[in-house]
């Protein structure tokens, strides 16, 4: 059913009219959400979409190129601080500032990509972890970045205030549309990159870097490029995250966050575009919403409160958050290495041939 007859079929955005129909329906739903969803969910969706952008970018590196990064919170921080400071200190319009911050993050991604040429697996993980931690401490140390106190993001003006063309996004719903559009563009861009020569080179490096080099792929260029692209995505996501939050400090971008980002990609499914999107949505929802308010869920909440007060420490119920995330990770690795995307593929195949 996934047979491709020519190159055009492989690169086209919508594989069939069915896909096109559902994509349009999903778009309409996404654009209509602010008109009926409670405000709290809009804020949650903003965070979800920021994480989606980051996870899609991280997947370019981890899923497609086979490199690991435990330092993505660092790029995320560069994006957040870069965008806010460029706007605050240099009065650069938002659109330019966030792009510049993305490129600054990409530059740091390129730098981190250099040791990746010689490091693999756990060694690369440690190097990237060190990078993430260093960024957090460097930002915290310099008063220019607001020190450990953190900084207040400026008003999100998507116009050009210098030309008296201000358009300040104040509500979560307004920010939702901005983030949604950027997220869609970034997802389409990621999909297109993976269909080009660059994308195929990434996959070749993942499958065997020696074989890739033998067929003429320049490892230096493509490995660093994968890091730079991934970091660019994290930078853009960070730039948006700063405005969603309004105020942030260096500790916001800690090591745990880097690990959570990796969890999103692994749980969603490595090496696909839909996978990290699903992973980011699920993990963010679990971590930021469902598991936070689990005590108020009827029946289940009371049961968990009883279990935690009987068997756990004083802060027991809150530990359920980490326990559930850990169990999901273990479950995915053991039962469904392709992640949620793998589950989706199997469901799709089942219904394609139903009732036979």
């Amino acid at each position, binding site marked *: 059913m996934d047979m491709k007859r020519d190159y055009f079929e492989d690169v086209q955005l919508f594989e069939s009219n069915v896909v096109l129909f559902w994509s349009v329906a999903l778009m309409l739903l996404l654009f209509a959400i602010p008109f009926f969803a409670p405000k709290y969910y809009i804020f949650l969706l903003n965070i979800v979409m920021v994480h989606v952008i980051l996870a899609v970018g991280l997947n370019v590196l981890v899923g497609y190129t086979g490199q690991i990064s435990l330092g993505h919170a660092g790029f995320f921080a560069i994006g957040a601080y870069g965008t806010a400071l460029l706007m605050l200190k240099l009065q650069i319009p938002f659109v330019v500032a966030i792009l510049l911050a993305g490129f600054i993050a990409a530059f740091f991604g390129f730098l981190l990509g250099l040791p990746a040429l010689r490091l693999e697996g756990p060694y690369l993980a440690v190097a990237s972890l060190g990078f993430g931690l260093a960024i957090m401490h460097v930002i915290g140390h310099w008063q220019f970045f607001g020190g450990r106190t953190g900084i207040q993001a400026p008003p999100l003006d998507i116009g050009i205030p210098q030309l008296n063309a201000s358009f300040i996004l104040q509500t979560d719903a307004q920010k939702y549309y901005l983030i949604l559009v950027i997220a869609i563009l970034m997802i389409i861009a990621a999909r297109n990159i993976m269909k080009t020569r660059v994308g195929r080179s990434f996959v070749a490096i993942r499958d065997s870097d020696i074989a890739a080099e033998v067929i003429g792929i320049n490892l230096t260029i493509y490995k660093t490029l994968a890091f730079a692209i991934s970091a660019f995505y994290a930078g853009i996501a960070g730039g948006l995250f700063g405005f969603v939050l*309004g105020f942030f400090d260096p500790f916001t971008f800690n090591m745990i966050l880097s690990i959570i980002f990796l969890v999103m990609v692994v749980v969603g499914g490595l090496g696909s575009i839909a996978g990290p999107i699903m992973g980011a949505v699920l993990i963010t929802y679990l971590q930021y919403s469902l598991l936070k308010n689990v005590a108020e869920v009827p029946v289940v909440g009371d049961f968990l409160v009883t279990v935690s007060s009987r068997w756990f420490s004083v802060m027991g119920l809150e530990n359920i*958050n980490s326990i559930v995330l850990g169990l999901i990770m273990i479950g995915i690795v053991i039962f469904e290495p392709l992640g949620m995307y793998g589950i989706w593929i199997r469901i799709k195949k089942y219904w394609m041939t139903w009732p036979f």
Partner: protein
Amino acid sequence: MRFKTTVGWMVVALAAAMIMAPAALAGKPGFDDKEIRIAAWGPQTGPAAAWGNVARGPNVMAAIVNAEGGIHGRKLKHFVRDDQYNPAQTKLVVKELVEQQGIFSFVCGTSAAGGMAVKDYLKDNKVIWVGPATSVEEYVFPVNPYLFTIMPLYEDEASILTKYVVEKLKMKKIGILYQNDPYGKNGLKGVLQRLKKYRMKAVAEIPVEPTEQDLASQMQKFKSSGAEAVLMWVAPKTAVIALKTSKSMGYTPQWVSSMTLGDYELMYKISGGLWEGVVTGAFTLPPETRHPLMDKYREATKKYAPEERWGVFFHAGIMFTEPLIHALKKVGKNLSTEACLRELNKIRNFKGTGGKITYTPKRHQGTDSIMVMKCGPNATYIKVMDWTSNELASWKK
């Protein structure tokens, strides 16, 4: 051309959606005829989980109030949310509480960055916030009509501790070890302000990063400066490393520390007993004090939260709710946010289990008073100076 037209229409549609997007709605009401909902956030998991008990303290206050029949017939319901010391999570849990549950007032609230991320949101939604569990100048200067603090400023505390060291302990050579952030720098400012009054200068002012593991060079500097007392505004781990390092050098000055390290049981344990003799500020009565309110809270904790360790910070969580409960009782049956704000603004010299609190519409920093305590054998509290206010407090001028 067709592509450009499509893009053009999309931009127009998007702009229209952004303009028409629903405007900000106020949160759900924080009370009804049966209950008043209050809430606190704090790190229950993650690296700062040790401070999580502050947010759980109000549970005991709610249990006490409810056992006494509630406030004018309304029960008190307290929500605790884990923000893992992460401002993104703080904002999310606060939004969930305000918009989904409906909260009348927040109490406590650990983490300065988390508080900064939500203070304007709470103000915009007209939600009261009493007794943040951090001391941050930006919370109250300029006055935020919905935010009332209880913890004294580190600057005031530092000034009073310096007064104690110079006037009571008669020490002339003072060293300062401060964390390189607003917490440490405000402490430094307070010490220098007081020393200036005595026309004295610190013999050593040494900054430290919270992540530093080796403090040998810093301790050597204090030793060579001949500092008789070292005042510190640092994290618990840094303080323990400082004490251990200096002892191994044979240098034992009088250590003086901020109220944030006032949990003697914890500090005694992690320092292997070296905390004995350390002088600290205190913003609440010590946990074992014989005092009608303290006895009541202690007994209630045994009854309603037997799993909790009765210590300074758990009690602080209860103490941070005292002015709010006082104001709610004063309001009477016709409860409203405005009425509660009016009563809070009328509080003068309110005495609970912390320092005397005074609020006016122009002043929401509740107190500038601390007590001075000394850690005795087996982590006991010895009072060495009663409640003292800072006559040099810059914000009162």
